[in-house]
């Protein structure tokens, strides 16, 4: 009798057309979502998942306990042999599938990020940070950087060398300040270049650089000596350069398989041809790199949460309480359904953020903030669902929670990202109608406030002057007062 009440049974009472319109098949949402993708992306999604399950899942817990357990360059090469790691150029240089990026430049990247991080957040980060490292070579629109330098890095990878890259903007005295327009104006920078014959000499420190220890290549941002972020320039450095050293490795809460290291530069000579984009274009490049990378961070958060959900669901199916599987209890069902609902919302947000013609500030930040916060909630719920088992390392969910927590911090804290959403939509949803011009009073004062962030005379003879004003306009300061 009851079979006729459940959807599967009830469907049988329909005619053929009715049955066709009534989907009652029990399939994972993952499969349903995959069906909505184009054929190349479907194939890619399966390949990412297969790779992650074989190479990441089994090593994640051990790498969390001992970050040296996994040889990251070796893992990177294994991924590269699958074509994962060289997707910014089409064949024969790289492995970009034009058909896969047709509907959105970032869609393959977010699919990959979700799959890798569902298997393991730390190892996933180690592989994905490489793409952040090389992103400036693409995003700068500098053809030399793209064809010559990116081409060379890909050649090295194809030749079996672990030519990983890292992205370095954060400094000890400037974290949020190098991710936020308001902060950038007064950033206390500590990594500077000086022009010398044939190139530049860079000194200073960068901190928390993911893959800082294992990367061969580093896209590093430095300001002209004594100047502010408006002189920021992106340089492509390699570890063989004299005076370039790796400092301390941070001991962090999660995503421990990927190192976060300090980079120390002592009068490092960088030839002219290592400038990515124009001199002084670093701020624009870094802001746009974040536009491209934040949806990927959203996808990483989604992946980590999915991993936690899968562990929790398995636990609830396998564990019996008072002689019933946990998943038989209604409160457990409600909680699992809540988690799945959140995963779906996260995926929808991330995928949507990749469907725009180009990534833009609000889209990336929305995906990042929403998914990071939701991922944290999902992982916390997974932990509590497992009760005492939840805090045991081998159950994996506590690790997922630790991993998820980081996504609320890097690529700009979620607070700074919220401000970026506001900033990106000022003149649209928020504030005045003017999206930034040279003539109206508020924009003019904004532009004048942008130059010479440190306020000191940098001695450049005005070279750093209004060269590249901080681009993003905002009409109110953080205290809500108009400027």
């Amino acid at each position, binding site marked *: 009798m009851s079979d006729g009440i459940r959807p599967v049974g009830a469907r049988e009472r329909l005619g053929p057309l009715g049955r066709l319109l009534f989907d009652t098949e029990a399939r994972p949402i993952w499969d349903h979502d995959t069906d909505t993708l184009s054929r190349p992306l479907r194939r890619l999604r399966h390949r990412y998942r297969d790779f992650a399950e074989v190479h990441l899942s089994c090593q994640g817990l051990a790498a969390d306990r001992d970050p040296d357990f996994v040889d990251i360059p070796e893992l990177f090469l294994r991924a590269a042999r699958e074509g994962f790691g060289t997707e910014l150029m089409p064949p024969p240089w790289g492995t970009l599938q034009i058909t896969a990026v047709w509907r959105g430049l970032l869609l393959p990247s977010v699919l990959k990020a979700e799959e890798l991080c569902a298997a393991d957040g730390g190892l996933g980060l180690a592989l994905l940070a490489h793409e952040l490292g090389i992103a400036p070579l693409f995003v700068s629109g500098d053809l030399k950087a793209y064809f010559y330098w990116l081409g060379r890095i890909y050649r090295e990878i194809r030749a079996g060398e672990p030519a990983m890259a890292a992205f370095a903007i954060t400094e000890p005295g400037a974290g949020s*300040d190098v991710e936020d327009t308001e902060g950038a104006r007064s950033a206390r920078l500590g990594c500077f270049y000086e022009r010398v014959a044939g190139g530049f000499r860079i000194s200073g420190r960068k901190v928390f650089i993911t893959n800082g220890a294992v990367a061969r290549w580093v896209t590093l941002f430095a300001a002209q000596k004594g100047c502010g972020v408006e002189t920021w320039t992106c340089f492509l450095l390699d570890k063989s350069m004299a005076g370039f050293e790796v400092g301390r490795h941070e001991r962090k809460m999660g995503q421990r398989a990927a190192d976060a290291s300090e980079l120390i530069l002592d009068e490092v000579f960088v030839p002219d041809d290592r400038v990515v984009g124009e001199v002084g274009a670093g701020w624009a490049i870094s802001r746009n790199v974040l536009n491209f990378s934040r949806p990927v961070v959203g996808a990483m958060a989604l992946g980590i949460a999915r991993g936690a959900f899968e562990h929790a669901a398995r636990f609830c199916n396998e564990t019996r309480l008072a002689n019933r599987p946990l998943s038989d209890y209604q409160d457990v069902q409600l909680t699992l359904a809540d988690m799945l609902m959140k995963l779906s919302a996260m995926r929808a947000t991330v995928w949507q953020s990749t469907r725009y013609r180009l990534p833009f500030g609000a889209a990336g930040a929305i995906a990042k903030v929403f998914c990071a916060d939701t991922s944290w909630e999902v992982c916390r719920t997974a932990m*509590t669902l497992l*009760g*005492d088992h*939840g*805090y*045991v390392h081998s159950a994996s969910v506590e690790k997922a929670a630790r991993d998820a927590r980081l996504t609320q911090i890097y690529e700009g804290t979620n607070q700074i990202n919220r401000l970026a959403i506001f900033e990106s939509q000022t003149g649209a949803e928020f504030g005045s109608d003017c999206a930034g011009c040279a003539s109206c009073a508020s924009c003019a004062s904004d532009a004048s406030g942008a130059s010479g962030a440190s306020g000191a005379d940098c001695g450049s003879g005005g070279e750093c002057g209004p060269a590249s004003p901080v681009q993003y306009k905002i009409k109110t300061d953080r205290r809500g007062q108009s400027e």
Partner: protein
Amino acid sequence: MDTEQLNAMRETARRFARREVAPLVGTEGRDGDLGGLEGVLVRAAEAGILASADPDGAGFEYGVWGRASVQEGAAASVAVLEELAVECAGVAACVHFAGLGALELVGEEMAGEALVGEESIGGPVAVALFGRGWRVSWSGLQTPPPGAVHLGAGGLMGACDFVYGAPGTRRYVVFAAGDHGWERALVAAEAEGLTTASVESRMGLAAASVAHLQFDAVGVSPSRRLASASASATPQAHVRRLMLGLAALAVGNARGALREARRYAEERFQGGAQIEDHPAVQLLLGDSASRVAAASAWLREAAAPGVVPDAGGDGDGEDQTPLWRAFAAKLRCCAECGRAVTDSLQVLGGYGYMEEYRLEKRLRDAMTLEAMAIEPNTLRLLCATNPGGVS
């Protein structure tokens, strides 16, 4: 105990925590210098902070879960635990769990010792109640449910998972289903038929010990069967203290996190100002502060001296409000304080995520507290039943 005495105890605990516990936590290692932990616990016992079942022990009366907690209520123990947890929730957990064990032995002849054969051993005692596969319920606390360890002619049979203790625990008070409902037995870790497996590699509260116990016909001599009549020795009374203590740990831990976040916010310069001047940071701090304030108000109410008797209600018709309040306190304090800790960590940005700033340790402890003992869903279900008439 009047307010003045309570404040004095709080102050003593605070000073002890600053002097002894804070240096142990330090900045090195994931969870501090756990090698120095046993020494700190010995000094806590000497200072009368840690309870003792031995009438000559300094903490016998007024230590955490000392004898006075039976007559005068939970307030003093809860206050001391909260202060200890401001410096380290793990150390506070050891004091809590050891105190719970000690209280089970108060008034028993073998209070100061337990025997393995004829050999006398001391050390902390842990309490084993939650049988494997048992979901805590009101009725189960009153009448042993099917998952409880069984005490029959053949000795103890069954299993208890996640038994909390202090390091060096070698004795267990086991709640078991006997002929007359819940009974208690004292067994040594080395007892024949008892297998203990320590739960290593945990997220937080690393200082405490957690073990799974498997009882396979563990003999219990009549002298090791503890008196079961008193209202303070029931599962309800134990669970009530367990819940209140964990809630106190959550509150203390969050207070410490908030203190560190405030300190950091005064010093860190970003966005052209000390970060404490940014509304984004103020929102985090304000949210944390109000959550901690709400949690601690609720905790004090749940553990208030004099207002509620220190019995969970161990018979039909008895007022179960105290136990209900303890469930609600564990649920709400852990949730609110967990949120307060994560917001405090966020104030430190990337530095909050690094081990040496200790905010990440606090977050690990907070999350462990939330998940452990009775997890939130079960607490909600317990709170849905309203035996105490709280409307």
